[in-house]
């Protein structure tokens, strides 16, 4: 077994752009669930909308910044459309509606009739829409090798994407940390703990929930953009499993904490990579093929989610007293 390569793969996951993308999406979900207690089961829908907004705009020749703004605007509109009717619903109803809304986004995005805009089932291939992001690159052309890892400086799955992605993660952690300790954040926590008490203090619960939904959704959209940048925008790559991954890693790291989503994302992907790499090396492909090993790793994720909720709902960093999942 080639331990150097396995270790390089595993540690590479710690700072991969996909890990950063999931961390950002989970920070968004943390605003929904950890801070406000909203059971948003449609975070992948926000991610997909952000990715489509960015890709379609930059494909039309606009800059990466415009693309980002369009992606954010689209996610805000989606949050408003989703929130207006549903924020008054009870927890499990909200879960069903958000998951259904995310599925509608996915089904519409992959529909053959939308091929002119979203590329239909095939999606938007990477070579077109990434140019705008490449144009922002401050690094010189070429590849760089640092220790075990060689990536392009600017293109696709690049060092530049890693730098920007993790700067964004740091920025959003700072943002959430400040928000959590602001009067605004305290109102959100109040809503999570006891909606009626907050209402009795004269706060508009609905309006605060809406703001939380919009903020978390916008973070989800940014996560979706980073998710699509090293690969392509394809509707099925941001379906229900993606939402469930975000939930698992948020609960793993610890909901209602600042670093929980980041820790959860790094840990989940690194452990999965470790399991997959070792299995690929140890088990002959005649016994288990690559696809089966991939499926095995999803079984692990599912089990992790179940066991976390049963035995340690506060995750690694969380405070059990603070996290009562059974809010409305």
């Amino acid at each position: 077994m080639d331990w150097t390569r396995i270790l390089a793969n595993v540690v590479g996951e710690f700072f991969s752009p996909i890990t950063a993308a999931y961390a950002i999406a989970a920070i968004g979900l943390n605003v929904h669930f950890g801070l406000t207690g909203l059971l948003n089961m449609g975070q992948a829908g926000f991610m997909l909308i952000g990715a489509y907004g960015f890709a379609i705009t930059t494909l039309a020749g606009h800059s990466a910044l415009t693309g980002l703004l369009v992606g954010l605007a689209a996610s805000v509109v989606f949050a408003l459309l989703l929130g207006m009717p549903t924020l008054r619903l009870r927890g499990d109803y909200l879960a069903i509606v958000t998951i259904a809304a995310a599925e509608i986004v996915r089904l519409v995005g992959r529909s053959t009739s939308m091929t002119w805009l979203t590329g239909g089932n095939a999606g938007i291939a990477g070579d077109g829409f990434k140019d705008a992001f490449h144009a922002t690159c401050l690094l010189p052309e070429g590849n760089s090798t640092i220790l075990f890892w060689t990536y392009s400086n600017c293109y696709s799955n690049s060092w530049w994407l890693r730098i920007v992605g993790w700067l964004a993660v740091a920025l959003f952690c700072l943002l959430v940390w400040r928000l959590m300790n602001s009067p605004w954040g305290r109102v959100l926590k109040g809503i999570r703990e006891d909606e009626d008490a907050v209402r009795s203090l004269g706060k508009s619960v609905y309006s605060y929930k809406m703001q939380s939904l919009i903020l978390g959704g916008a973070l989800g959209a940014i996560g979706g953009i980073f998710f699509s940048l090293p690969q392509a925008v394809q509707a099925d790559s941001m379906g229900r499993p993606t939402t469930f991954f975000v939930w698992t890693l948020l609960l793993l790291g610890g909901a209602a904490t600042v670093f929980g989503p980041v820790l959860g994302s790094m840990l989940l992907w690194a452990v999965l990579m470790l399991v997959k790499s070792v299995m690929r090396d140890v088990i002959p492909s005649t016994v288990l093929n690559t696809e089966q090993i991939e499926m095995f790793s999803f079984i692990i994720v599912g089990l992790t989610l179940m066991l976390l909720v049963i035995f340690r709902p506060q995750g690694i960093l969380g405070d059990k007293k603070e996290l009562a999942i059974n809010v409305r």
Partner: protein
Amino acid sequence: MHGAVVHGVRPARARATLVVLFLALLMCAWWVAPAHAASECVPDASIACIQGRIRTADGDPATGVTITVEGQGFTGEAVTDDDGRWAVEVTEDGEYTVTLDVATLPAGEVLRNPADNPRTVVADVGASAGALFPLGAPASAPSPGDSPSPSVSDSESAPPTDAEAGVEDSAPPGSITFPRVAQQFTSGIIFGLLLALASIGLSLIYGTTGLSSFSHGEQVTLGALAAYVFAQLMDLPLLVAGILAVVVGALSGYAQDAAIWKPLRKKGLGPVQLMIITIGLSMVLQYTFAFFLGAGRLRISIATPTSINVGGVIIAHQSIISTAISLVALGGVAYFLQRTWTGRATRAVADNPALAAASGINVERIIRLVWVIGAGLAALGGVLIGLYFNVTSWNMGGTILLLMFAAVTLGGLGTAFGALVGSIVIGLVSEMSSLVIPSDLRYAGALAILILVLLVRPQGILGRAERIG
């Protein structure tokens, strides 16, 4: 609160009876209507169809395109008709090379994937195989990433129905004609009844335990896959395989409640925690199915589907039998809930568990029974839906899970008759919406209905208004 059980009964039953009568009338109406001949290739015991539908990039039918099919010592040619459809009959199983003559494409049209022409298609006698040639601007393959992203989830796409005829039917719909409306209506009713079998358990389990089970879709898949294993891998007759699949499903319900849900109820976990656990369980089960049986499409029965033409509406014999089975099963559930002591006890538990326990009902026993019945019905639904779509796969239940939620929410979460009415509505919506919207969006239409219902009447059609959504 307790009285609601008694009051709710009669109207619900009357409504259910009305629905059945209405259906029977409609069936009769079509029976006497004049018959139309089917013009397309219909597979039978000695014929396999290779077919497809070609549309321009704008979604209009591409007419006059020549397609050649070669293989197994056979050469055939077809030209697309006014609908853009083409079909070639072959008589041998095996691989065929399908070539589209690019020169015959309408002016200005190009293949989206030039690499897919010519392409190889595997034909099975007694079935249809599709060969798609999408037109439009060529798209390059997505660039590979080294991502840990769920690559397998790509196959989560494509609801099994798309494979039904092997023809992707997703461009804007054609004109609305009476035969089409009738055909879609019939499909909607049949699909709705099968969906009801799958959904009733979801509704009963919610009613008695307050659990929104996201893993109920996997109970449906379990039934279909068990039937596949018994019928195809163990060569048992279809009927035996179906019965065994239902038994396996019911046992899994018993085991699940005993091993997971009862201990967790004892532990005092709330409904939201339990719901997230079902999400994890759903992932575990789905990928376990895929792990053992692969992510491909499986067929419970490879027998030749035969169909009858009732006034222009083509119904497979299998669907008629399936419909009959589901009506009997649903009738059995209705009889159980209304007429037996245990059924009444079940409704009492659904209404108020504490009060039910106080009046001497063994609540845990009832919940266990509900799990057995619910999972058994879901398995039956899975077998019949797998036969109806003529294909099943590891994620079949996951694909229709949200339709099931839509159905039970529409009818009123926790009410069995609501699940029946809701399922038929959802079946009709998803099948008939393809008359006006592209058919790959029909499930989206059904989900939009779910959201609308929650806005307007969160308690559902038959639910009690006291429930706050």
